[in-house]
């Protein structure tokens, strides 16, 4: 047999299974290739020789001191963190931020009878209603698509749900923010619905990209069992009605969420 290449030896060292036995057999009888493998090994030994300075036992505390005052508060105005001028926020999170700002205005704004604050909170409220509504609309769409699909009839062995999965993943993030905001604002009914929605979205997001018809049906069952589609629709309608109703209303009126029990 001809000698092994450097790349083959490297792959062998990495535990690559392809051609493993042939290379092992060759190494048994070829001293030259054994020496070559040893020289590759030498590189890794040399890597281990590179020391890393010990940052010290108190290092963690030091890091905390360095970053603590740069962390946005989460409980009080926790959403302000999203205004950080960092371009790494996902689009969903940016949309969510609008909603968060809106909800914050919705729950806290009217307590101060200052005209500008009221005006600002009204604007934010409208933005938030649109955003939450959109979020719920998107969620509803995914759930409907999944509920109505009939993959078994199409005779497929595996159903690819990766598209729905990706969308669900995006929504999970948004949903978490809205839920948290609703909780902070004391809107438990909204928080509960979003909580249930969260579980279903996570279910979808964490499924394998390709599922068997049986697995698919079990996802459908879980969606149906929670009655989540109906709840999402009801909340969405309420939001829409609330937004339409609040437009001409006087600024003092706090749009406290209520009458959501029917869901």
């Amino acid at each position, binding site marked *: 047999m001809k000698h092994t290449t450097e790349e083959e030896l490297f792959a062998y060292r990495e535990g690559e299974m392809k051609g493993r036995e042939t290379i092992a057999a060759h190494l048994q009888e070829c001293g030259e290739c054994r020496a070559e493998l040893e020289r590759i090994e030498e590189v890794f030994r040399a*890597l281990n020789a590179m020391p890393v300075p010990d*940052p010290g036992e108190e290092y963690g505390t030091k890091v905390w001191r360095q970053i603590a005052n740069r962390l946005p508060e*989460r409980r009080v105005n*926790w959403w302000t963190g999203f205004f950080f001028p960092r371009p*790494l926020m996902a689009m969903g999170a940016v949309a969510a931020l609008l909603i968060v700002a809106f909800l914050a205005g919705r729950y806290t704004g009217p307590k101060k009878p200052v005209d500008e604050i009221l005006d600002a909170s009204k604007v934010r409220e409208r933005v938030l209603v649109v955003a939450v509504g959109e979020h719920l609309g998107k969620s509803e769409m995914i759930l409907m698509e999944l509920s109505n699909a009939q993959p078994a009839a199409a005779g497929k062995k595996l159903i690819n749900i990766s598209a729905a999965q990706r969308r669900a993943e995006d929504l999970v993030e948004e949903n978490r923010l809205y839920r948290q905001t609703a909780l902070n604002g004391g809107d438990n009914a909204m928080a509960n619905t979003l909580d249930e929605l969260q579980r279903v979205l*996570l279910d979808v997001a964490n499924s394998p990209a390709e599922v068997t018809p049986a697995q698919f049906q079990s996802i459908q069952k879980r969606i149906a069992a929670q009655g989540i589609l109906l709840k999402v629709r009801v909340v969405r309608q309420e939001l829409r009605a609330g937004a339409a109703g609040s437009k001409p209303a006087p600024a003092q009126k706090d749009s406290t969420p209520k009458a959501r029990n029917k869901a």
Partner: protein
Amino acid sequence: MAEATGISDAAAVERTLAGEREAYRVLVERHSAYVYRVAYRMTGNSHDAEEVVQEAFLRGYQKLQQFAGNANFGTWVYRIAANYAIDRLRQKKNEDARREVPSRAAEGESEIDPLSQLKDSAPSPERLAGSAQLAKKMKDALDTLTPAERTAIVMRHWDGCGIEEIAVVLKSNSSAAKNTVFRAVQKLRSALKPFAEGRGAAKAVGTES
């Protein structure tokens, strides 16, 4: 926060998300040293490493909702640090390239002989093995790698990351990531040749650059 120090990572994440900022401190204190070691190997110096650590935990805090408890927090923040370190390395490389004369600016990707930087002293390999000098040579050799190669070899060798995980950080596929690790080993090997396997060859190669 005395009562918080003993809590699990998952509980600390939950409490941070619930608005308890001090709970994040537990995570920072617990994982900083590990993230520092990774960052040091990637950047090659303490100053940059410390910056990577801070940034990784800041980003971790901002993105904590995405973490969702579905992974190990240490692994997760490790990946954030690796992502940031590779961006930083690339940025630095670009800045260096702009500052250097055009003939050396192409160093990033082309196979400039790393020996040109190593031929200052050439004691016998026997004396070098395991010595501080070898460590220094290795440090220099690592500096000749591209950001992707350096990240790949650090993740693979020291942290035992799978090829898939490396591919995610490099934003490439697994066969490309595998190649990157191999290329890094090749480059390190040729940089260390005069010391690790050298003998007479060291001088012959060393003079031609």
